């Protein structure tokens, strides 16, 4: 089984197992590799982190399909765990959705979500969101389902209607999205544990995702509790971005204060440890493997 097939199959199996899959959003390939080394079952490539890491800008629909796809591809190539992706609104109309699905499937993502916000979108926990009529995402989900080549490339619907029209509308929309072909359901930014429970009751048999954002609208809830509430995926979209930003800010302040980075060194990985982590030994071994003197064994006319 090729890697792409293996990753799709693995992710679907994990999500459908009844357990809860915990995914950090990785801002880049290095972050994804850290997740993998710490035992993550899967990793997420998502807009808030990609917008921050590629543009140093907020998640307001400025970063586009090309940036998101390329970042996701880099992450997929860096790890051997499934990578799920945030495909925003599908980046346009139904033709764009088709290209989005084909492209993410081709680079080896395990699946994507598509949402019902008006483009340019906002982070789901920002104020001022607007959503399209339900029919828009219904049509996009049908197009997405038709465009995928493999049934185990999972398609998740995301609605941002909770913030605009309330939870009942968000649930109603998600039911229509599920009927249109969404394999997984994501209702963005419920505002209490009771709302999380209400969502589960509305979708007792459909895998769902919860989004845990520090300082966001949804109360931070442990995975075990989310699992009891019926959620199969929990994602931490901003934690690595915030941690990187904080750590780098502290480093620069230390350097500016002391004139060296010495006082911050305890917060750093060491030179040999980092080289080991990114596989320098393996690369060097590979380089040596194809040295000219090792090729003479092929140079026979026998």
């Amino acid at each position, binding site marked *: 089984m*090729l*890697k792409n097939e293996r990753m799709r199959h693995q992710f679907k199996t994990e999500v459908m197992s009844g357990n809860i899959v915990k995914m950090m959003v990785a801002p880049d390939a290095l972050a994804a590799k850290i997740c993998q080394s710490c035992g993550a079952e899967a990793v997420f490539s998502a807009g808030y982190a990609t917008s921050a890491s590629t543009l140093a800008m907020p998640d307001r629909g400025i970063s586009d399909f090309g940036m998101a796809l*390329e970042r996701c591809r880099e992450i997929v*190539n860096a790890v051997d765990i499934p990578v799920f992706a945030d495909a925003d609104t599908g980046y346009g109309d139904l033709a764009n959705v088709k*290209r989005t699905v*084909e*492209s993410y499937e*081709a*680079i*080896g993502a395990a699946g994507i979500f598509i949402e019902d916000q008006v483009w340019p979108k906002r982070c789901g926990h920002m104020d001022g969101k607007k959503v399209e009529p339900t029919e828009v995402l219904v049509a996009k989900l049908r197009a997405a389902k038709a465009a995928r080549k493999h049934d185990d490339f999972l398609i998740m619907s995301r609605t941002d209607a909770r913030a605009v029209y309330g939870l009942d509308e968000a649930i109603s929309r998600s039911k229509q999205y599920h009927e249109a072909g969404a394999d997984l359901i994501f209702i963005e930014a419920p505002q209490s544990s009771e709302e999380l429970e209400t969502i589960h009751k509305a979708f007792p048999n459909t895998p769902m995702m919860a989004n845990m954002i520090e300082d966001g609208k949804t109360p931070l809830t442990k995975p075990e509790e989310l699992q009891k509430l019926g959620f199969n995926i929990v994602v931490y979209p901003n934690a690595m971005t915030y941690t990187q930003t904080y750590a780098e800010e502290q480093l620069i302040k230390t350097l500016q204060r002391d004139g060296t980075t010495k006082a911050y060194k305890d917060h750093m990985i060491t030179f040999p440890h980092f080289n080991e982590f990114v596989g320098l030994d393996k*690369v060097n071994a*590979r*380089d040596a*493997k*194809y*040295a*000219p*003197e*090792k*090729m*003479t064994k*092929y*140079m*026979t*006319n026998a």
Partner: protein
Amino acid sequence: MTLLTNLATTPNRLIPAAGDGETFSLLSQSAFPAILLDGTLSAKTLLAQDNQGLLTESEYAKFLRDMQLRKHGQLIADLQSGFGSPLNTYYAAQDLERSGADILLLNDQKYPSHSTNHPATTSAEDLLGKARAAQDALENPATELWIKLEGIKEYGVQEAQNRITYLANAGADAIIISHYQSEQLQALLDGHSKLPLLATWTPDTQPITGLAGWLDTGYLAQQAQTARQDALNKLLEGAIQYAEK
């Protein structure tokens, strides 16, 4: 069915080359067994430069990924001379396969590869290192590695035969002969190559039997360029007449 299996059933078929989306789309709707996304033609499209060596692997791979979504048959990717050392070749081959290549075409030029009739070629050891690295990088057993030998004018038929044998030992799947004279190509065919042989093709190429196939060097792109030049001339004439009025 792999491309070589396909060609074995119908020898002497032509595999066309593309370097732009419009040509690729046209070819993908035609009955060719495969399409070569040629490095030189791609450099012309993406960089407006007549030198494949200016096109980096990541730039080319991005284009390949876009084109692979439009393919209906097999796709040959131009690995050039491996984009550096055998180590670079390993990662380039891995990336091009992940980007949709069914066949990788590695040439025996020195890095950086050039679009010229008299390219400088690399040593057999370096070529073998790159061929092994490319093979080791491939994940899908169905992906083929073809090698384009570009130096027969420089190193002669005997060295070409040696290289073919060495490359067969190293696991390459087929050989393309480029920048050749018909007698040289015939001599290679008479020598009972250990690998399927193909040759590059232009409209002036003399027919020769016994090859597994022919690889186009950009016939459609040349015709399109001629047509564009004619159109430009008409445009210039029209513009001048309009100015005189």
